[in-house]
């Protein structure tokens, strides 16, 4: 659905994947642009009326951290700040890693995903993700976030490339990514808590594999700014920060 007034525009889409775990009708604003408060207020007001008529109880939105007018208007309409996230990018070049990581190479294997890995990966997805727009929302219970992550992984394994980290032949981590033209987007990656020290080596192996066997020229991903461990991991692998986002959500209760 799209709302526009003067130069302001708001585009939203339904989010059945959120609805499934939140047990309420949900949507997401994917474009909220405009150059003055009055027009932004107008389209956001129309959107709120629409949400009320459609009984939409949860909305989320991610905007550039520099969009001050949007921030002001979202807060005015009861949207809560939830998380800050950053997009990190890297151009094609040899990925490097320190000698200590390389010494661990004999302990791991990186293989393509098969259905036999699914249960282990679902467990990792449920237990190892403590960051993101659901995990960092104080009004969303942890079990809902766990369920969302496992649902998300089921979708990812069916529609994207997934590499699996094996330690002692058992799955200890995964990385889902998609390559479009010459760009690789890392969608979701995680490692079991007890094997986190293998994460840098796993990432390095996956990225080098992509570089070696595809024509990828750029790599990018969006991570929570609160996820300091993974943030440092990408920095050490040579990624640069491209953009900072602010995520907001609104939980509505209609009588």
């Amino acid at each position, binding site marked *: 659905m799209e709302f526009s007034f003067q130069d302001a525009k708001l585009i939203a889409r339904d989010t059945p994947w959120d609805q499934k775990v939140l047990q309420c009708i949900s949507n997401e604003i994917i474009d909220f642009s405009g150059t003055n408060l009055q027009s932004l207020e107008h389209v956001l007001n129309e959107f709120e009326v629409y949400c009320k008529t459609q009984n939409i109880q949860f909305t989320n939105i991610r905007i550039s951290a520099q969009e001050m007018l949007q921030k002001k208007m979202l807060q005015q309409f009861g949207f809560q700040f939830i998380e800050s996230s950053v997009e990190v990018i890297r151009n094609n070049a040899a990925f490097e890693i320190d000698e*200590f990581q390389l010494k*661990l190479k004999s302990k791991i294997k990186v293989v393509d995903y098969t259905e036999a890995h699914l249960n282990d990966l679902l467990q990792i997805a449920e237990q190892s993700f403590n960051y993101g727009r659901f995990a960092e929302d104080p009004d969303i219970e942890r079990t809902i976030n766990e369920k969302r992550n496992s649902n998300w992984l089921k979708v990812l394994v069916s529609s994207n490339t997934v590499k699996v980290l094996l330690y002692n032949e058992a799955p200890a981590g995964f990385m889902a990514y998609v390559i479009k033209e010459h760009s690789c987007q890392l969608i979701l990656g995680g490692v079991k*808590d007890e094997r986190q*020290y293998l994460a*840098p080596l796993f990432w390095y192996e996956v990225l080098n594999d992509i570089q070696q066997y595809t024509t990828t020229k750029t790599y990018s991903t969006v991570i929570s700014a609160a996820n300091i*461990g993974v943030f*440092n*991991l990408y920095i050490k692998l040579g990624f640069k920060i491209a953009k900072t986002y602010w995520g907001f959500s609104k939980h509505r209760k209609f009588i």
Partner: protein
Amino acid sequence: MEDKILQIINSIRASKGYDPLTDLTEEKSLRNDLGLDSFDLAELTVHIEAEYGVDIFSNGLVHTVGEIFKQLRNKNN
């Protein structure tokens, strides 16, 4: 053994620009108190395995200095 582990941890901390520690207490968290991230933990496990032949992470998560000592003592017993 405690002195050797202190030396290893201090060498890792030095590469991050952290001040050396004068002693290690068993309850110290590797991540929160000593400031080690996953890269550092990888370096730690490689050093310890080279010195003692023990993979400290082979049986699961290691949070504290005391858990490292315990694994090394178990190996010696």
